[in-house]
């Protein structure tokens, strides 16, 4: 039973306290991936770029470029490279600069 439902029965209020307080339901959201550079090889990066249905992932030499704005949190990169990818848990991603959403992930795995 969700916590907000129990609280609602007790107090008669279901409304979240967000943004003043964190909301428990945030843990249930699908969120963009986070990557582990020490496990990340060029081969794994290419697999993930190929699996990505949009333009969110690309590789330039030893850098994986991750466009968070283009990510739909579909989880296909986690399917092809489960050791590299975990869920970031971040949903508060709104930004005033589009470029702030483009992240560079160094590729350090595979003895490089």
């Amino acid at each position: 039973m969700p916590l907000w439902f129990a609280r609602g029965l007790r107090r008669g209020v279901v409304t979240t306290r967000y943004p003043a307080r964190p909301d428990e339901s945030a843990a249930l959201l699908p969120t963009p991936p986070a990557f582990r550079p020490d496990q990340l090889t060029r081969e794994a990066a290419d697999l993930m770029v190929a699996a990505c249905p949009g333009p969110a992932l690309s590789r330039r030499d030893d850098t994986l470029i991750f466009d968070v704005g283009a990510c739909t949190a579909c989880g296909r990169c986690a399917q092809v490279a489960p050791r590299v990818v975990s869920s970031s848990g971040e949903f508060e991603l709104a930004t005033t600069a589009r470029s702030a959403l483009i992240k560079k992930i160094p590729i350090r795995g595979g003895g490089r």
Partner: protein
Amino acid sequence: MNPSPDETEAAASRLRETVAAQFGRSLHIRTLDTGSCAVCEQEIRLLTAPHYDLHRLGFFFTPAPRHADLLLVTGPMVRAFDVAARKTYEAMPGPKVVVATGACALGGVYPKDPFVHGDVGQVLPVDVWIPGCPPSPLALLHGLGVAVGRLAEKTPGLTFIADGGAA
């Protein structure tokens, strides 16, 4: 026509100050669907449900662009919608804020389709970008808070690099 990034940044920060001062607890939102699949609209609609209760924060939806302070744009901006989008934006009184909502509006779903512009920024001057497919109501609340300068941005500090932890 195209201002430099510095000018844009300065204008954006001035706009945010004005918006925060003038619309502290009463900001009216007009939503604009430019070809989205309507899941973003479902999440926006949920903002008025009791669990999120957008109105407690002083945000309200309005059907009239002339009453709107904030334009919440979803979808990849289909070319057939050019005139309507421009008229909606021009009908809004200043100062006005444009918020691009969802991966489509950020260019993540149809980046090269010939029937769409690809992202909202190609047609309208976007002030705040909200990623997500769809952005959850919590993410939308955070985005609206960022748009009026009430909440801080977290994105520049995030790396999306997981250190160790579970394999």
